[in-house]
């Protein structure tokens, strides 16, 4: 079975996630874009791993990526809540206390 379409999908999801991360003006949307990027990378790992029979390294790597993504999401949401509580906004453009004022 050809994994070509899966590779295109992986690249597509990675780039859509990156575009979401860059263009959306909301902290939670940025986290969602990050999750999409991680899923694109995972699809790549699984697709290339499935091309090699009798080896589970690709899947194993993807499993650990999911593990780290869980930790990242938990800590990320906690930080977003904290930032929202302090600044009363979730627009990263308005969170500028550390930015130098001209």
């Amino acid at each position, binding site marked *: 079975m050809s994994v070509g379409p*899966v590779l295109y999908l992986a690249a597509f999801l990675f780039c859509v996630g990156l575009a979401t991360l860059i263009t959306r003006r909301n902290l*939670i949307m940025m986290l969602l874009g990050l999750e999409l990027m991680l899923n694109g990378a995972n699809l790549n790992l*699984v697709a290339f791993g499935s091309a090699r029979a009798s080896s589970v390294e690709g899947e194993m790597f993807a499993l650990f990526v999911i593990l780290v993504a869980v930790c990242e999401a938990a800590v990320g949401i906690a930080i977003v809540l904290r930032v929202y509580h302090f600044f009363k906004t979730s627009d990263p453009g308005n969170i500028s206390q550390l930015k130098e004022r001209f």
Partner: protein
Amino acid sequence: MAALYILVIIAALSGLGLLFVKTVLNAALSLVICLLSIAGIYIVLHAEFLAVVQILVYAGGILLLIIFGIMITSTPQDVRPASKWPSFLLAFLPALMLGTCLNGVIPAEATRSSNTIATFGIELMTQFAAPFEFGGVLVLVSMVGAMITASFQKQKQ
């Protein structure tokens, strides 16, 4: 094979929905569809264990967390990007380039045995036992850290 193409199309469309949908909650629901169809792709690629983990952890855990985050922060309408075309190009052109590059390096086709869960479990507990344990420690630490970070308590004077 047809199932693979259908799942790929669903995942691509719902992933694109994440970029163009207006509200954050709709984007999160679009991401749920995308993640579930990715789990289906894992099943087609004979990575059954990973499909189950994907549904349990991503569609169950992370999205629940994110939806609660959306409800708590309850932002007004997310401002859409100023113009569509830059983000559209930003998504499509690199995807095409990256996909073409990756498509060029596919190794020779091979078929896998249909049931790899047993092999996967044995490998996880023997060869990959150390990363597994470190992963457990990482989850514990990040859970405690997230709880401490998110808990609002009044500052003592």
